[in-house]
């Protein structure tokens, strides 16, 4: 009976209810999208392995490390495997086709990243071909590449044309793995640098090592950095997670702005929903007075108003959450080069639900207070 009354009251002013419901849906959708974008920013951090360390030039990432460091690092106690990679920054046909591309030590790189699933024969073919490259499944799909296709990157940091052959296509072990990267042989890059710019040859951007025990991070990091202390290229060794987090920190202000906008949206929809509930209850104040006359107490009246608010907000919230999935698919299509992983997380869904509950509660508070405190005689006096 009370449920019936609650539902009928919620949809009594159909247009107003639908507009509020739509507002809640849009707010929840926007909140979910913005939070997913923030999560996407942290995707690299989430995907980082606990037993992988990154060794970079202590001054800055823009300064490289001598290739000779590799053997010394490999000899440090606790280092199980080593590889290196260099940000290449090449462009495929046009700058708008941006994707991450690296020159890597082909023989060792894939072994360090088991999350990249590559068929063995393709992996071998990549290692054998000096001009071969490995591309992510997403990238291959985006440009229609297949194994054996010839592609050319235009160098930006390393000028010139760089013809490559797709030898392997990797798939991510799970959805959090970026499938929009390209890796090719550092040897290929280094050969040409030796010829055209010898001073830039024999350097790598960063070293990646796998350590035997995740608990030995501090000891191995200290040992590696001690090796090159007071050298021309001192190193900074950190976990892959800390390294990725460093990139995110650079955009902290933007992330903060996005988070603030997402909460401002919630604030606005709280005001809109509260306004709807206040108007709706004010119009029916004499009915609440009649209910009070019949003996309905504060708890039941509060339940009726809160329930009505919840019905509207829950319907809007459900619509918003349901809409988030197709919206993310569409968004992903346009921004996959910037955000390769754009999946809504369970945490975001939980936040969505909490937001809906909070909006429903806040929207109901003022009208509940008004209905509970208004004297019956005064409220009945509103009728003719």
């Amino acid at each position, binding site marked *: 009976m009370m449920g019936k009354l609650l539902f009928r009251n919620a949809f009594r002013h159909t247009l107003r209810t639908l507009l509020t419901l739509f507002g809640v849906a849009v707010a929840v959708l926007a909140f979910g999208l913005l939070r997913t974008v923030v999560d996407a920013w942290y995707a690299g951090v989430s995907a980082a392995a606990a037993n992988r360390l990154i060794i970079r030039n202590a001054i800055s990432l823009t300064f490289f490390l001598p290739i000779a460091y590799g053997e010394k690092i490999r000899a440090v106690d606790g280092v199980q495997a080593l590889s290196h990679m260099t940000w290449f920054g090449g462009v495929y046909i046009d700058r708008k086709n941006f994707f991450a591309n690296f020159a890597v030590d082909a023989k060792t790189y894939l072994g360090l990243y088991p999350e990249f699933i590559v068929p063995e024969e393709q992996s071998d073919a990549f290692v054998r071909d000096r001009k071969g490259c490995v591309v992510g499944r997403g990238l291959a799909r985006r440009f229609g590449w297949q194994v054996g296709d010839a592609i050319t990157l235009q160098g930006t940091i390393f000028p010139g044309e760089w013809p490559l052959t797709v030898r392997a296509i990797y798939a991510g072990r799970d959805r959090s793995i970026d499938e929009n990267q390209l890796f090719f042989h550092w040897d290929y890059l280094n050969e040409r640098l030796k010829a055209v710019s010898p001073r830039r040859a024999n350097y790598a951007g960063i070293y990646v090592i796998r350590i035997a025990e995740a608990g030995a991070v501090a000891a191995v990091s200290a040992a590696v950095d001690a090796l090159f202390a007071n050298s021309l290229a001192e190193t900074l060794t950190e976990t892959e997670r800390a390294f990725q987090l460093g990139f995110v920190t650079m955009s902290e202000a933007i992330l903060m702005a996005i988070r603030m906008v997402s909460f401002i949206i919630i604030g606005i929809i709280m005001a809109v929903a509260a306004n709807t509930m206040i108007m709706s209850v004010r119009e029916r104040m004499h009915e609440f007075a009649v209910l009070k006359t019949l*003996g309905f107490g504060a708890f039941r009246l509060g339940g009726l108003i809160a329930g009505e608010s919840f019905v509207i907000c829950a319907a809007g919230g459900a619509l918003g959450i349901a809409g988030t999935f197709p919206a993310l698919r569409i968004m992903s299509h346009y921004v996959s080069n910037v955000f390769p992983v754009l999946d809504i997380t369970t945490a975001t869904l939980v936040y969505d639900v909490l937001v809906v509950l909070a909006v429903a509660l806040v929207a109901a508070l003022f009208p509940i207070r008004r209905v509970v405190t208004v004297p019956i005689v005064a409220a009945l006096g509103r009728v003719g």
Partner: protein
Amino acid sequence: MSTDRPVVVEIRRLSKSYRRGVQVIPVLEGISLTIAAGEFLALMGPSGSGKSTLLNLIAGLDRADSGTVTVGGIEISALSETALAAWRAVHVGFVFQFYNLIPVLTAFENVELPLVLTDLSRRRRREQVAMVLNLVNLQDRSDHYPGQLSGGQQQRVAIARAIVTDPTLIVADEPTGDLDRVSAEEVLVLLERLSREMGKTVIMVTHDPRAARRAETVKHLDKGILAHDGEAPVPECL
């Protein structure tokens, strides 16, 4: 008041005033009154005489400045808001001038509404609602919404809602004020039956001398003071 019946409402030196800014407007001044169980009392008086205020105080809808109201042995003027709400749910049935039915509920559901506050099972509630709708002769209109009923039918639904919990008191504020003559007559007959045949105590505020004639007792209020019985008799011609 008939002396062989127990007193159900006892009012002693009841005063009430309203404030309008700094101005204090007295509405009731030292009212004392007793109403017997099963009595049908009409409260009459000009606009602003305080009759609706007195009805509100008897029904526990408002608080007096001083004096006491005792209904069925309970001094309701001393009850808290929560206790008063619970008391109203059990002891008072209301009939308003403008019916005050909930427009999104059917006649059946409107009558069922006060029973939601009781411990009755759903089946028992439905039986009770069907019984009172039958009593007000609206069993065939139970699925109609208030907007689909005439004024007289709506008021009969309101009466059914007022009696469905079998209350001690039925209070009616101008129950015929918004009805045509035929519908008003039907409502008055119904209230009279509730008092005479079912022993309900009915207190009715009315302007209408014709309505007052149905009552067993008529009390007159003027400027917040209760006149003695018979001071303002109802003209026989009406």
